[in-house]
């Protein structure tokens, strides 16, 4: 990398009108979401569709929690892929390493927001969690391991992995130069530094993989340990969470990779092989998860206790059947698309993206179905069946978070190369 770079790679720093338009739109969406939150803070959570379990026949956890679980799930894939690339030397996937890391960081930020949306006393919550948090509450792991540890780990991984590219970018004069130089922090790509980074990232990866397994498990335990809620109390919860996390995350990664490939129009940088890898991963995870679904349903309808069966019945044929079967349909269709790849010559990115979107929709649906029915239809005392319908506040909060996530990602893409820079690319 002796040569002087004249402009930043992958359109970093170069702001097109299309980018501005989309950024503004996404910004508006994000602000709308925060407006919803402001209503919630000022009026109380009465503006949501949530109500007390039992006499009030409502669900006290709804959209917010469902999206916490979903976002944390999405975050799974990013850092996993990055770590696996490092550990298993999957050089083929190297181009998507950074967008994977970025996806993780963004998803975790969104998850943190979603949790705050769900608190009745937000500011008090932030203080008291740091002050009084109890390890025997499954919620402890969610916010120490997931939000704190996991987020730090991914940030650090992203930072260290990016130093080399930062050093390259730092050669290019411009508004971002100082930022890039700060990021590079004196990285000069000497063999010694390379070796050092190799070692550091190896150990980071080693540390991260168990962390994310435990982190996602704790999230599963938030539900799986509750004997009071039929449909939750199951040893399958934790592993199922990890699997569905992988499914939604990899699906999202495929979508992002395709978008990047489209916008940058550099097919050498993101060869079909990358997508083949992702598609295979998604296929395996999806099969495993569907297997889990079948096992769970079978257990509940075959030997499940009366209330367990009630909840399952609601899922399969009752009030929640539309969402349930829609999710299943999404899974099956994307499964079909992924298999169809093998019949065709060369992967069709279009099909993969569709599959990616579908599995994410299905994942959101499944998260919703994990959270809600056990509350409205799973009361152990005969309160009768309840109901839960999100209000505009909850919808706008969720949409706002999605918009915020997209905004953060495209902003990142303008501040920093979204893909590792090949030697001499910056010329």
């Amino acid at each position, binding site marked *: 990398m002796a040569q002087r770079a004249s402009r930043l790679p992958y359109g970093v720093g170069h702001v097109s009108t299309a980018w501005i338009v989309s950024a503004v739109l996404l910004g508006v969406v994000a602000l709308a979401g925060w407006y919803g939150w402001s209503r919630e803070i000022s*009026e*109380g*959570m*009465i503006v949501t569709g*949530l*109500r*007390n*379990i*039992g*006499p*009030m*026949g409502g669900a*006290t*956890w709804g959209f917010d929690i469902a999206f916490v679980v979903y976002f944390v799930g999405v975050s799974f894939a990013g850092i996993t892929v990055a770590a696996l690339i490092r550990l298993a030397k999957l050089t083929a996937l190297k181009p998507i390493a950074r967008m994977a890391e970025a996806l993780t960081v963004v998803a975790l930020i969104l998850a943190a927001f979603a949790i705050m949306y*769900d*608190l*009745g*006393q937000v500011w*008090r*919550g932030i203080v*008291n*969690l740091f*002050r*009084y*948090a*109890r390890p*025997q*509450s*499954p*919620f*402890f792991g969610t*916010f120490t391991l997931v939000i704190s540890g996991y987020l730090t780990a991914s940030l650090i991984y992203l930072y260290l992995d990016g130093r080399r590219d930062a050093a390259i970018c730092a050669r290019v004069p411009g508004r971002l130069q100082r930022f890039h130089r700060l990021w590079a922090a004196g990285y000069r790509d000497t063999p010694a530094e390379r070796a050092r980074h190799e070692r550091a990232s190896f150990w980071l990866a080693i540390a991260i993989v168990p962390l994310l397994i435990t982190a996602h498990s704790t999230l599963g335990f*938030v539900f799986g*340990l*509750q*004997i*009071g*809620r039929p449909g939750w109390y199951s040893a399958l919860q934790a592993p199922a969470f990890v699997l569905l996390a992988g499914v939604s995350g990899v699906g999202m990664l495929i979508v992002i990779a395709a978008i990047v490939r489209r916008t940058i129009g550099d097919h050498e940088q993101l060869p079909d092989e990358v997508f083949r890898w992702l598609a295979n991963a998604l296929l395996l995870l999806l099969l495993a998860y569907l297997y889990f679904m079948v096992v769970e349903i079978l257990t509940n309808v075959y030997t499940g206790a*009366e*209330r367990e069966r009630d909840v399952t019945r609601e899922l399969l044929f009752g009030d929640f059947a539309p969402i349930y079967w829609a999710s299943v349909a999404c899974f099956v269709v994307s499964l079909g698309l992924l298999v169809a790849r093998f019949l065709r010559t060369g992967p069709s990115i279009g099909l993969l993206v569709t599959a990616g979107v579908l599995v994410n929709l299905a994942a959101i649906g499944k998260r919703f179905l994990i959270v809600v029915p056990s*509350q409205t239809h799973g*009361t*152990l*005392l*005969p*309160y*009768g069946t309840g109901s839960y319908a999100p209000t505009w506040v909850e919808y706008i909060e969720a949409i706002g978070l999605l918009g915020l996530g997209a905004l953060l990602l495209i902003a990142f893409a303008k501040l920093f190369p979204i893909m590792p820079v090949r030697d001499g690319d910056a010329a």
Partner: protein
Amino acid sequence: MARYGMVIDLDRCTGCRGCMESCKIENDTPQGTYWMYVFRFEEGEYPATQVRFMSRPCQHCDNAPCVKVCPVGARYKREDGLVATDWMRCIGCRYCEVACPYGVNSFNWGHTEEHYYFDWNAEEVAPEVRGTIPPWDNPSLDEPYGPEQRHIAGGGRLKGVVDKCTFCVQRVENGLDPACVHSCPVRALVFGDLEDPASAPSRLLQSKPSFRLLEDAGTEPRVHYVGGNPPTTETRQIEPAKAEV
């Protein structure tokens, strides 16, 4: 140290819901919120229909799921057996609510008001209540209780926190029975020290076969029922109280 508990005689309960009303007045809970709830059950089909009643306070479990899951220790178990909610610490995550198999927790969804049912200063009400302390002015609700000196009494004191039946800690610590027990016209509710075999609840408990709700959940409730059967999956609730906010 007394370890309190309640024994409910289903033979006596007439389902009049007087306990619900006295509870709301004593603890000033918001509209649509019932710390004490009286089920009206029916079983079987006409003409072989049976109607039964069952009052359901917080079970004050010895192995309380809500205490386990509370992320900040706002929900805690007291030495005297009461399960209390420190609404000065609660962050409103409502985990206790999803963890509780009995559905006894209630969240303060909206703004807290000075008066949830009557403005005692309104001109049509004032003459009726002149000279009495309105529920929201009950001074004992704002005081800290127990050796921990934590704020656990009263309902709807703060927006965005969870509260639930306290066995009227403000009365119990002053040697009185909880409001529901005090006001039950047929003495179906009996409150006292379950450790003391001579206490009224212990004696009632020994006099008849008893059960506790959802025993197989392993929550070890401190509320016992005598003179009846636990609700089955065939039991339907009728005439539910209006619980809307």
